[in-house]
């Protein structure tokens, strides 16, 4: 049986696992954005926090994902359910590109524009929301794009701790030594990554200041 026949026969399950995958990636990216973007803004205001925050996010990124899932297993509440655990780990992985791009985006705003804004009496908040964030938006979206594509790949590993998603097929296929089953997980995951990349790429171009 080739991969297409397998996917056709199990289309209900393929769709279910794909949706699960999308949900895990989506919620993790959202949480990472809710934490990472404010942290990125914070380190433009408090340069002394720059090193510790970017450094921590960097370190997290270097932990092998399978190990991170394992480390979190004994955690209370989080460890009780596989999807919670997966979401936490994935969120941590997505933090670095979001913090870094938010910081770079704001720092990349033309200093003359910031000086003019400050000089004309914009408050810090007005400067941030009316000038810096709109001008940094393209770079921030690029960070979300990188994070999403990264997480679509990483989420396949979350199946190892039973969090579901397309990784189920990959691990099942590995156990069965069946390439068609592995591909039934890998192909939709790759398609999702390409789709997300193209979608956010389009958004990035649309929302970048002219």
């Amino acid at each position: 049986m080739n991969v297409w026949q397998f996917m056709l026969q199990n289309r209900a399950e393929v769709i279910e696992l794909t949706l699960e995958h999308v949900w895990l990636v989506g919620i993790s990216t959202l949480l990472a954005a809710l934490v990472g973007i404010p942290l990125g803004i914070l380190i433009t205001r408090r340069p002394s926090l720059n090193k510790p925050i970017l450094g921590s996010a960097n370190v997290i990124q270097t932990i092998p994902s399978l190990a991170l899932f394992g480390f979190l297993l004994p955690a209370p509440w989080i460890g009780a359910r596989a999807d919670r655990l997966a979401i936490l780990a994935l969120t941590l992985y997505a933090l670095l590109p979001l913090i870094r791009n938010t910081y770079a985006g704001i720092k990349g705003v033309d200093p003359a524009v910031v000086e003019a804004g400050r000089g004309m009496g914009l408050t810090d908040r007005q400067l941030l929301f009316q000038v810096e964030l709109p001008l940094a938006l393209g770079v921030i979206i690029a960070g979300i794009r990188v994070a999403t594509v990264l997480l679509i790949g990483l989420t396949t590993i979350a199946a190892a701790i039973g969090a579901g998603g397309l990784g189920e097929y990959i691990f099942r296929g590995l156990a069965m030594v069946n390439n068609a089953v592995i591909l039934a997980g890998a192909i939709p995951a790759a398609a999702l990554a390409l789709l997300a990349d193209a979608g956010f790429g389009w958004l990035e171009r649309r929302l970048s200041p002219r």
Partner: protein
Amino acid sequence: MNEASQTQPAIEFSHVSYRANSSDGILHDLSLEIRRGETLVLLGRSGSGKTTTLKLINHLLKPEAGEIRVDGRPISEWDIIRLRRMIGYVIQEVGLFPHFTIERNIGLVPQIENWPADRIRARVQELVRLVGLDQQLASRYPRELSGGQRQRVGVARALAADPPILLMDEPFGALDPLTRAELQREFLELQKRLQKTVVFVTHDLREALLLGTRIGLMEAGRLVTIQTREEFLTSTEPLVVAYRDAFSTGPDTSQPRGRS
């Protein structure tokens, strides 16, 4: 405005010092009075402290020592945001907001001051006309404008909320000579009508003589001398002489004075 505030200097520096911080120049014990309605030109070479002096007025830089008073009140007692909104600020790089139309750029301060929309629109139209721009440009974005047009917008934006004080940091420095001359002439016309208190920074003696009612010559963080245009042309102060010499090598030497 009462009698006392009329005679009081608009801006006063007493014994102000500022230490070098990255690219900003140093300043030693600067004392200076800027009168209401005058155009004081700060002349000097790069790093002489002119820009630092300017940025101390709108508190983009904080003095190390000494006191700066605006309208008789020490800056430390001002609400900085309020202070900045009554001081127009024009810089060489212009710094227009690239994601806003010209109209929104000019109307931003009135907008954050919560003026009603129709009053903002009327004010923007008035300013666009005042700085000699085509009304049709109002809906364009800064990148669609030429350098000269952008700096006109910069001036219009600084004037939006009708501030009594205007700080201008080499505003025409990046423009081609013809556009610069055009904007200088228009600035004189504008200033004749508006009578703002203007502090104007330049390193161009010709520009200083053309625009300034008084000229403050700065060197290495000190104010060397402050003189009227006429005094400046006949002064024997060595540095003033050096400046006149430096600018008199070209064929159109003492022209600025003759023009009237």
